[in-house]
């Protein structure tokens, strides 16, 4: 009885369904990869499926975290993929130009330049959206197209290889036997949580996303807030770019971060943040990103034939979204327990009921 109530409490929690989905997806691997959950020490660092999920998933998590804030302001950022490519390309270019590629100073310089570039990209998006009032999707589409070109311009279409242990640390290296990327992600996540929840930034962002005109009339400097969101998002993408390039010790201006924006947005929504802006949930986003990365890994490990990859992905995504949708669960539930209430509701009514609140 006590347990039951505890269960109900858990089921109420926002993260309940995303986490359930994640666990289910992980469990799906076990029959195909018996040792899926095993993690053991291989030449000085942890090794196992879970580790590689975190390792390969961390860039997506970063991008998704940034995307969450942008979406919360009622915007969207399609340019993250391009920013990933730019920052990676720039960093690798700088490192590869150095006499001693291993020198920490040089690598840090590369990081600094890359992030500076990312910052500029973010400011640019912010300018277009907040100052010029261009619709976010189109404003960022511009950088999505041109930015990819800029990245290729930097690498001149080639793949820039670097041989620098200090550079490969951030995305490929290990620290305390754990992937260093894990620490970066943890840091960024903690930072953004603090930035939004310890200060009033989160509240103001949610207000701007929830009702722009009202926010203007209470004197919120919406423009400033939006610019900050886009800059932060670009910075996250920048770091992700460093990770991706460092993970393979090479910058690929052509393909790095290609289509990552879609996965990021997917992660944000699976995490429970609405694309219409307002309330946002960083924790959910992280889980969402992990779900997507797990999905990718699963496709590889359970041997889905290549041509079926996308179908498989689509099906899983839609299932995950369905189980998360209260409307769907309500219907599914009513379908099973055929207790007809006083008024048989046609599909759609609960939806509308939920929306009605505002107008009561």
């Amino acid at each position: 009885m006590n347990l039951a109530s505890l269960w109900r409490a858990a089921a109420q929690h926002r993260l309940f369904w995303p986490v359930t989905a994640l666990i289910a997806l992980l469990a799906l691997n076990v029959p195909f990869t018996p040792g899926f959950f095993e993690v053991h020490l291989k030449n000085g660092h942890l090794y196992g499926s879970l580790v590689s999920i975190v390792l390969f998933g961390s860039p997506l998590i970063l991008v998704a975290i940034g995307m969450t804030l942008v979406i919360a302001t009622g915007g969207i950022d399609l340019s993250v993929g391009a920013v990933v490519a730019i920052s990676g390309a720039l960093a690798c270019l700088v490192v590869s130009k150095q006499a001693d590629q291993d020198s920490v100073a040089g690598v840090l310089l590369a990081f600094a330049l890359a992030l500076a570039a990312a910052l500029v990209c973010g400011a640019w998006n912010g300018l277009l959206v907040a100052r010029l009032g261009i619709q976010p999707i189109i404003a960022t589409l511009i950088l999505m197209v041109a930015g990819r070109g800029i990245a290729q311009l930097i690498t001149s279409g080639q793949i820039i290889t670097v041989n620098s242990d200090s550079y490969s640390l951030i995305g490929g290296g290990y620290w305390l036997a754990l992937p260093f990327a894990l620490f970066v992600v943890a840091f960024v996540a903690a930072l953004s949580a603090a930035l939004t929840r310890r200060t009033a930034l989160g509240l103001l962002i949610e207000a701007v996303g929830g009702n722009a005109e009202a926010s203007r009339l209470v004197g919120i400097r919406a423009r400033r807030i939006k610019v900050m969101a886009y800059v932060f998002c670009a910075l996250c993408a920048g770091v992700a770019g460093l990770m991706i390039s460092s993970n393979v010790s090479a910058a690929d201006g052509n393909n790095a971060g290609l289509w990552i924006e879609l996965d990021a947005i997917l992660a944000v929504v699976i995490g429970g943040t609405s694309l219409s802006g307002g309330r946002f949930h960083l924790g959910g986003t992280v889980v969402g990103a992990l779900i997507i990365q797990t999905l990718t890994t699963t496709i590889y490990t359970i041997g889905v034939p290549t041509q079926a990859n996308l179908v498989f992905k689509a099906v899983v995504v839609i299932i995950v979204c369905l189980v998360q949708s209260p409307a769907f669960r309500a219907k599914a539930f009513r379908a099973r327990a055929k207790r007809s209430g006083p008024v048989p509701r046609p599909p759609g009514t609960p939806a509308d009921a939920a929306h009605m609140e505002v107008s009561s």
Partner: protein
Amino acid sequence: MAEPRPVLEMTGIVKEFAGTRALSGVDFRLFPGEVHALLGENGAGKSTLVKVLTGVHPLDGGTVAMDGQTVHITSPLQAQQAGISTVYQEVNLCQNLSVAENILIGHEPVRHGRILWKELRRRAAELVTRLGLDIDVSATVGSYPLAVQQLVAIIRAVGDAGTGPGTRVLILDEPTSSLDRGEVEQLFALMRRLKAQGVAIVFISHFLDQIYEICDRMTVLRNGVLVGEHPVAGLGRVDLVKLMIGKDLDELEELGEHHTRHAAGDLLLHAEGLGRTGGIAPFDLDVHAGEVVGLAGLLGSGRTELARLLFGADRSDTGRVDLDGRRVTLRAPNDAIGRGVAFLSENRRTEGLVPDLTVRENILLALQAARGWTRPVPASQRDELVAKYIAALDIRPADPEVRAGALSGGNQQKVLLARWLLTQPKLLVLDEPTRGIDVGAKAEIQKLVVSLSEEGMAVVYISAELEEVLRLSHTVAVLRDRRLAARIVNGPDVTPGRILEIIASGEHR
């Protein structure tokens, strides 16, 4: 004694929302050809009852019967088909469509599926004039102020009550909340006509005089419970109020005429030739600390526009403003806010509330915006402040963590008021603050205004109710055709009649 059969009978209606139980076992009967008042405090459950009836919210219990047969209405569309047309509390129109379309969408005149636009506009114009309104029906609804939109919503509902598939029941949820006498008269005339045609009308309002003027019978709710069904004639005001809020209401009387205790502080705001083309003609206005300046005028007279200019919500294109004797340029609201001006918009839904945020967050928003994002309000202080104002304004439910969107109309209004009081402004601009607020709360708010002004806060007060304006203000500014026609020092000799005279004639000695 043989009663006629009710056209609509709701029995044992139950409605639960996530936390709250909005309706518990309410019975409601409606007879053909009657105007039936649905009364109750804010949050009593009036709108919910309406929404449950019209299928916006699913029922959690009880039955609905029309002409004796049980009906299952599960969407507004079905309600309309069943002959129930409704004006919901918050104006629900499509801002992007023209007035004409908003009135007739769904019933557009068509030939071979092709919309006959001329015919459409003709019909709309006709319906509009029937309510004595003259506006360009091909302009978008969004270009008109709330009051006009409210009228359009009524015209839509009534429109198909006249033309549509034999409307039997007409529901009006606070239709008059921001209309003034002229429009209300027109509306009542129309209601009487429909009543004569045998249409049954549900009328929700917090204006008791209107209830006594137009209604035959009334049903009173309190906290979602039915507390009585009476013929209007049978029940006096005092008893009615007692029935609604469960306690006597003498404060209003004791409040008396405020302006008698006039305390003219030093000049706070001085506007000179301030104006905005298309909005309001250039005007001069002085507001002193501790002074209440009431804006009187008819619908569309420009009160809101004036108020918005004082706050920088719109940019003025002529004139200048001094605050505290210092010249200021009001480019955006936060220029004004920074100098202690606060503005409560008349349009709580689109310009006030952030529905997804909690009550607490909504209340704190203005203060937080002023402090900037780096300096959040300390938790302890925050909760204490919020609790204080929830109590002071008696916001229900008193839980700071509920979604503001889930509050009843009146309570949302209180939340917004709290939001601005929190910032302790020097000048408080209130555009129809008592819109949709129940008698008790209205008295509370009026008392609040009085005490605030006594503590030295300057107030610019807009209300569709002349009496209210006169009761509270030291100075009355009369607007007409979007220009400031007159400024009068309030006193015993200033009566609603006199104001209306000025509005009519447009000049005063």
